[in-house]
């Protein structure tokens, strides 16, 4: 099964087969990071640009390490200006970057859909490293890889995702992919952060203990402390009284439950320290797997772009916006 996606904008609409190619490729790359000399020439001569409009430590470092372990040239741009302050428009940035002929662009942006915007306007693959409250596909892929390593499967697992579902791009990407792969998803959080529309996609509950009951996997989300004062919950203290994952809550899950957290953690807020550092925690495995997953994504997208430079977008690319494409063609013509 060849990889047919041109971009990685999100996991919604990505088929089970394509997800398997991504995860299988990531698994095969893991070994490289175990070597003494952690470098292969796979992407030598390729230029990868990372464009971060939001602060990030781990995701950006992870992409950079992934690119460098495959010998790509990695150019890291970050915009100190927030997306709302006046600077160069994303369209101009896109045109300028495109003119430098990169082989892939990694984008993190506060606006949902920003990678889709870019994808319709540049010639190279776009990798979404987190867009607003929409998706964070590489985070979900590393979560899937980690779960698969520990459970040997995804089909039929019960996965509880706990926290700020409303604003979480990690939750969305995981929800879409886990559903595609046959897992049973439970979403847990206060009603303010768990809109009722979610019920059409997953089981929902406001009770942490019920939510993690017999779960194979518990995925904790970071609670944004700045949400306090905007009435999504009264105080961080009260939030953690109801939704902090403690040993007592973990005891309700299956004995071999694994616990994930995308980081950075608020210890004692959404996750108790003894749980975060305990025997069920696979949080450090996630970080390690992040490198392999990002190597796989870069490898598959850059190689595909090289093999079929003028290929028509695959039918599976449902997320590609129609209207901007039309505009692009008009400009080109």
């Amino acid at each position, binding site marked *: 099964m060849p990889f047919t996606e041109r971009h990685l904008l999100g996991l919604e609409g990505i088929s089970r087969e394509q997800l398997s190619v991504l995860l299988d490729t990531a698994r095969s790359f893991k070994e490289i990071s175990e070597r003494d000399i952690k470098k292969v020439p796979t992407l030598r001569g390729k230029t990868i640009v990372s464009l971060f409009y939001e602060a990030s430590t781990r995701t950006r470092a992870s992409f950079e390490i992934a690119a460098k372990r495959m010998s790509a040239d990695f150019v890291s741009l970050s915009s100190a200006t927030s997306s709302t302050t006046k600077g160069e*428009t994303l*369209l101009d940035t896109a045109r300028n970057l495109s003119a430098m002929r990169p082989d892939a662009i990694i984008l993190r942006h506060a*606006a949902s*859909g920003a990678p*889709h915007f870019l994808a319709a306007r540049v010639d190279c693959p776009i990798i979404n490293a987190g867009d607003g409250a929409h998706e964070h596909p590489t985070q979900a892929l590393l979560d899937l890889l980690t779960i698969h390593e520990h459970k040997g499967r995804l089909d039929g697992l019960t996965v509880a995702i706990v926290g700020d579902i409303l604003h979480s791009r990690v939750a*969305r990407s995981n929800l879409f992919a886990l559903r595609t792969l046959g897992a049973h998803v439970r979403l847990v959080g206060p009603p303010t952060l768990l809109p009722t529309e979610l019920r059409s996609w997953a089981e929902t509950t406001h009770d942490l203990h019920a939510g993690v009951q017999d779960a194979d996997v518990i995925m904790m989300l970071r609670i944004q402390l700045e949400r306090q004062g905007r009435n999504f919950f009264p105080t961080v203290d009260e939030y953690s009284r109801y939704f902090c994952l403690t040993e007592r809550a973990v005891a309700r899950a299956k004995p071999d439950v694994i616990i994930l957290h995308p980081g950075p953690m608020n210890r004692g807020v959404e996750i108790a320290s003894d749980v975060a550092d305990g025997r069920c925690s696979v949080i450090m495995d996630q970080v390690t797997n992040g490198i392999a997953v990002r190597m796989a994504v870069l490898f598959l997208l850059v190689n595909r772009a090289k093999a079929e430079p003028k290929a028509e977008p695959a039918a599976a690319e449902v*997320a590609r916006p129609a209207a901007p494409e039309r505009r692009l063609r008009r400009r080109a013509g």
Partner: protein
Amino acid sequence: MSELLIRGGTLVDPANRVHGQRDILIRAGVIVAVVEAGAPLDAAEATLVDANGLLVLPGLIDMHVHLREPGYEYKETVETGTRAAVAGGFTAVACMANTNPVNDSGAVTEYIRDRAAAAGLARVYPIGAVSKGLRGEELAEIGEMHRAGIVAASDDGMPIIDGALMRRALEYTAMFGLPVIVHEEDRAIAAGGVMNEGALSLRLGLKGMPAAAEEAMIARDLALLAHSGGRLHVAHLSTAGAVDLVRDAKRRGLSVTAEVTAHHFMLTEAAVEGYNTDAKMNPPLRTPEDVAAVRRGLADGTIDVIASDHAPHHRDEKDVEFDQAANGIVGLETTLPLALRMAEEAGIGLDILVAAMSCNPARILGVPGGNLAAGSVADVTLVDPRRRWTVEPGRFHSKGRSTPFAGMEMQGQAMLTIVEGRVVWRAGGAESGKVAAA
């Protein structure tokens, strides 16, 4: 003196309960005779217009447009906007006050009217601001603007947050018989949303604004209307709940009218998919249930008016991330065919359609038109209901290009637009003989 004889067309004149073959004679800007097709007329001097196969309508009136002048001439001018209007079949438009400077003074009102006279295309009726600078704090000098020619008061684009100001606006405008036109949105509930709130906004990760934000504000203003008197016109209502609120208020005898845009009766939020900024507007596109409800509202008379909310923007304001994109689309050149299509789909008669696009706006604003009886002003729109064309934004007369209908096949086009007896628009490529003589 110039005379026009429009012969062989199908007259749709709901104000006079006429719907059938009639000939019309226009002299000196006035309709002087309406007779059965082929009946003799003293019109030896008249220029003949062959309207066979065409609908002859009272000039269409779009009571909700943004002409952007003064201040935003890079988006649109009175001239380009009225050129788009007449090309779309509109003989008159009412333009909102959110210009720069805001139309909150007689001087700006007069300026807009001067620009319209210089353009010499559609009639332009300025709408004055309710509050100074659209700031929602203190009343603008509505009397002074009334003397300069405004036909309504509105802070459109901005909801009037302060309920006490809204109350006083309803009371004060009653002195001049002006309606207050309201953009209904509780900004606190809308909470910075950029599309309709629901499963789709959740999936796209975009901030939603719930229907409740619109409905809560309408409910407040209806309560104020019942208390204070005055006339309320609800602009661009978009939700099923809003239709219910207005229907109930009309049943209770309140002096309220309502309007819907072509995009709200034609499209759902699904148009946003792919982060399409040409589908970003406020109020946002809603659900299929809401579309069905506004169509029912038009059919049963709850909704009085079809308007475009023509809101031109520069390409640079739309070709950005969805969150940052400006609200609004152009509509003057697409509203008529969309209304015809909607009417056919919803089983709504042409009489209701013409009332919503001509008679009712004229009545609400207290302006001439909406009437083809002898003695009426000769504002007439001739429409070929079968003519097919494709929406190509690059060919719009408006400076604005942003429309979710780009590439869509339309049926129905204004062939001839007549303002006060003067032909201000003639469709290109009209079949020879048809409309050619004028």
